[in-house]
Structure formats: C-alpha cells, structure tokens
C-alpha cells in the first residue's frame, strides 16, 4: 500500500483591521500610550488606593500614609469579629455559588434553544440583574420570614445565588449551544449510555462555562451589602455588613486592611478560576 500523502492544513488568511482613522494616525504613539495608561490608572486607582491606606503606620484613615507597617493587618487577623466575618462571607459565597451552579446549569440544559419560550424564560432568569437590590430585599423579606429563613446564612446565600444565576446560565447555555449536537450521537454510537455521554462529553465541555459563572457568583456574593443587611441583619455578619457597621463610628485603618485582604482574595479567586479554565481546556480527559 502506498504511503498516504498529506495535504498541507488549510491556512486562514490573517486579516487585520486598522481601527485608527487617518487623521488620528498623526497623533504620536507615545501620546496614545500615555492616554491609555491614564485611563487604566483611573480604573484601577480605587483598588490601588486601599493598599497605602491599609499599610499605614498611623492610626487614622488618611492619605498619605504615616510610615509603613503591617500592624493593621495583624490587628484584623487577631480580631475575632473580623475573622468570623471572613468565615461567614466565604460560607455564604460558597453556598450561593453552589446553588447558582446547580440551578443555572439545569436551566441551561432545560430551556429550549430557540423560540418565544426561550426569550421569555431568559428574560425571567436575568430579572435580578435589573431590579434594584432594595426592591429584591423587600420582596424576599415576606416569604423568608414565614419560612424561618430570615437572618440565616442559607437564606442570604439563596438570594445571592439569584444574582449569580444569569451569569452561570448565560455561560453554560453558550457552551451548550456551541457544542456540536453530533458529539452526543457519536458517543452513543460508540457505546456510551446517556449517563456516560453526560459525564464524559457534555459535562467536561460545559465545565469552563460553569466555572466562569461560579466565580462571578462568588465575587457578587462576597461584596453584596444590601440583601445581606436586610435579610441577614446582625445575625449573618458578612464582611461588607461588618465593614458597614464599623465605618459608621470608627475610622481605623483596620477597615482598610480588611478591604485590602478582600481585594487580594477576590483577585486570587479570579486568577485561580482562569487557571482552572485554561487547564481544563488544555488537558481534557
């Protein structure tokens, strides 16, 4: 048998669009660079500001910092109130993310791919995004008080989950819609039962979408104040609730240290999620 000759892979032509109109091309690149740097700085500034505030050696919340020190970080680490707030926040966020992941993924699998039903159902799923949190908080108050869910971590977590739900739903629905429907048929024909098709094919392919939605839900929950305040009261003292309580009568740099730790945690979570996504895509099974 003659050797199978190989055709070269099809090459896609590289097309690049010049977005800068001609009259703007006269503006030097350096100037553009400077402008973009200023914009980025403006966006990142509040986040960066928290670091000098937290690392000050003084004991007032002022700028510029009076010498550098880790004393406020140590204060926070030693304070049982803050430690409990961190634990509560993480608990609530994890519960919210888990609930959002399960409901969002199920909805994405169940809601039809096209038609009026889809439009209606998607709008419903996205509703928590456009309704003011105060309205949501009042709306939840009634049923939660009769179900004894008021002032419980689970009660708060469920409401947080609804904020993350649209993101889980959109990410997973996107992953499902971009999946070749013949993949499932191929897996069946190769000997996989429907349950195995889900475990080996469908689930791994939508997993990056689920992770993206979960991380967004974690972040939403972590900094959510209004729902937590209304429905958790003092009993579910999440980080934002505790910070809100503190800042009303104390202006210690301790609170900036809390904010800094929260920022670092959030950024780490995002980085971790991105890392997992890349790994999942690259490795597969």
């Amino acid at each position, binding site marked *: 048998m003659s050797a*199978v000759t190989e055709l070269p892979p*099809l090459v896609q032509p590289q097309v690049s669009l010049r977005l800068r109109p001609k009259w703007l091309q006269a503006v030097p690149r350096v100037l553009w660079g400077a402008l973009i740097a200023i914009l980025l700085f403006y966006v990142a500034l509040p986040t960066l500001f928290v670091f000098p505030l937290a690392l000050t050696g003084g004991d007032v919340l002022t700028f510029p910092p009076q010498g550098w020190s880790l004393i406020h970080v140590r204060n926070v680490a030693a304070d049982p109130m803050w430690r409990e707030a961190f634990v509560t926040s993480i608990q609530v966020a994890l519960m919210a993310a888990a609930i959002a992941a399960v409901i969002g993924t199920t909805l994405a699998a169940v809601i039809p791919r096209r038609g009026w039903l889809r439009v209606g159902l998607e709008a419903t799923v996205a509703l928590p995004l456009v309704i003011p949190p105060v309205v949501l908080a009042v709306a939840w108050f009634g049923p939660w008080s009769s179900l004894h869910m008021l002032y419980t971590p689970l009660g708060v977590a469920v409401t947080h989950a609804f904020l993350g739900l649209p993101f889980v739903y959109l990410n997973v629905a996107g992953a499902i819609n971009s999946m*070749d429907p013949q993949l499932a048929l191929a897996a069946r024909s190769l*000997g996989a039962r429907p349950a195995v098709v889900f475990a080996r094919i469908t689930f791994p392919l939508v997993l990056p979408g689920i992770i993206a939605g979960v991380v967004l839900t974690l972040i939403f929950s972590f900094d959510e104040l209004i729902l937590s305040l209304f429905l958790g009261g003092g009993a579910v003292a999440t980080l934002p609730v505790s910070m809100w309580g503190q800042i009303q009568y104390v202006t210690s740099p301790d609170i900036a240290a809390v904010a800094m730790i929260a920022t670092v945690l959030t950024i780490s979570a995002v980085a971790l999620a991105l890392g997992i996504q890349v790994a999942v895509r690259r490795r597969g099974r």
Partner: protein
Amino acid sequence: MTIESDHAGSSPDGDSGPDAAIGLELRGLAKSFHGVKVVEDVNLSIKVGEFVTLLGPSGSGKTTCLNMVAGFLLPDAGEVLIKGQDLAQVPPEHRGLGIVFQSYALFPHMSVADNIAFPLKRRGVKGAELKERVRQALVQVELEARAKAKPRELSGGQQQRAALARALVFEPSLILFDEPLGALDRRLREHLQVQLREMHERLRFTALYVTHDQEEALRLSDRIAIMNEARIAQIGGCEDIYKRPRSAFVAKFLGDANMLKVTVLDCKPRACTVRVEDSQATMTANHGEESQFECGGQALLVARPEALSVSVPDRGGDATLLVKGELTDRVFVGQDVVSTVDTPQGSRITIRERPEGDIAGLKIGDNVDVVWRTLESSAVVPVSTEELPE
C-alpha cells in the same frame, strides 16, 4: 421483491439461521414526520465487506434511513437486520456500529488517542491491550505521530482519518458514513475519496455511505442505491445503473442524459425497438429487466452525451441516426468538444465527443445529423411524472 406484511408473525427461523454473508438488511423500512412520509418501503441488503452508497437529492430520505440504522430514530415500520438480528428497537449504544459523521464529531476535549480509546473503554478494554489497540488503529490511518494532538490541531484530512480510526477500532460489523466529505473543498474531497477507497480495499469493512454527490458515489461504491421521494428508485452496480437506468430520474441523476420521446415498436426482455418522435428514426436500445413496455406505447429514450456524435447530414455509413437538427453551440472543454443541437420539433440535444470528427469542420447554424457512436449505453425508460434533477 415480495416482502409480505405478515412476516412480523414468524419467529426468527432458528435452524436455517441468518445469512452470515449479509452485513445489513433493511426490510420495508418506513418513517413519517408530521404525516409526511420521509422513508417508505425501503428494502436493501448489503453483503459483508461490501461498500454500498445511498445516493439521492436532499430530502430524499437517505439520512433518515441512516439514522434508523444507527438507532437515532425509531422506524414506524420495518426491520433493520444486522448480521441477521433485528435491531430496530435497540438503542444506539448496543448496536455496535461505527459511524463517521459529516462534522466528524471528534470529541474536542480529548486527544486523538483518547478519542480512539473511547469506544474501547466503553467495552471494558483496559491496560496494555487498550494501549496496543489504540496504537494499531493509529498506525492503520497513519496518525501515530499525532496521537497526543487535539482534533482542532489536525488538518481536515487528518481529522477524517482520526474519525475513521475511532469508528473502526472496535471492529464493528458495519460502518455508516453520513456525508463525511460534504463540508470539504473539491480538491481535498477527491484526495480523501482515494484514501477511503484504499482503506476499504485493505480492511474490507461493510459500509453504508450516504451522499448527494454522484461522482463521489461512483468513485467509492461497489453498489449504489438511488433514493428519490422517500423510496429507493434503483439499486445496482455503478455501471449497471448508468447503462440501464430504470427511470428518467435515475438516468438524469447519475450522469448527464438527453431524453427523447419515443414510441415503442417491439419489446423484448432486455431491449426495445423504438421510433424517435422527432426524427422517425428507429433503433434498438436496452432497458432495465423489470421495466415493461407496451407495443405502441410512449416511452423516453436516454441518450448519454458521450454516446453521441455530430456528423454532416446524410453522411451514410453504418452509424445509426438519432435526430436531425441545427448546431446551435459548440464549446471546447479540455479534451472534448461539447455541442448543442436543436431539432425542428424543439428538443435540445447535448453531445460530448473528441474534436477530431465531423464536428471540426462544422459551423454554428449548420444543419447536422446527431448519430450514435455506440448504442451500448442507450436506454429506454417509462414516461416520467416526477420532477427531474437538472
């Protein structure tokens, strides 16, 4: 072709046993969607090691047939027998068929080797045996070097070979192909047709191939089943169908064909004497075994462009005249010249021949004779009410 409707009552006849040489048999297969009959009374039998193509225009029911064989659709009626066992109600994962899809359907999150291992793992193969069988399959399709690559890193041809390896690795009794080359450009398609043909000659798997591309069907198949309007219009070897089409649809769908109205003068089992309406010329042409024509009745004569020749009028000699007419067009296409002749009665005839004959000395507008170069591939078919392909 007598399929009794009461065959359901008879139990699988134990001692006579299923015919081991039959790889796939379809009996009276039927399927409707929303009251529209998509597949109707399809009967087909494929020998072990045979390559059979379902060829038809889109909407003719060929993919629905394939889906019923695969188990993705349940037939409304009829049987799907694989190695003599009726599998019509068996789910796809228990049918043990290899399928090559139009999109290849390689699992994008798995390497080529893992894709090929997938059907083996489902069958409990593991350890050293798994590794060895995957390696052998990769060698068969010459992809050893790409074992660890993801499908998207492969060229179109490599993807097709990986999909074929995955469909072959668990040694299925039958492989189904659902227009696997449909999405590729012409050059790559022809290249892969040659590869597939070679692979089939080497491995001798039983294949049911679905396509709407007649050239592809001719290149690949041992036999072709032409489908039209939910039914199989004709089954046969490539040459047989080409030379003895049973209907105007088949004649038009497989190859080019001129159709002329004729009156049947005399009908024998395999040949008819007919008189061409436009020219009153008489000749004897083939017809399919099952076709019956009444003497004096109307029929259509199929004249392939390459069986005809243009000559100066009344040249004489032993060439059989088909029609007389006016030369209206003449185009050189590579080695051949394709000319068009219009008869006074309004028929238009296409002729394809080498440029050396009389055609070289003729001008557009000249009166000419269209004569047979060979009557071997002429055929008589019944007058058709179907819509004919262009």
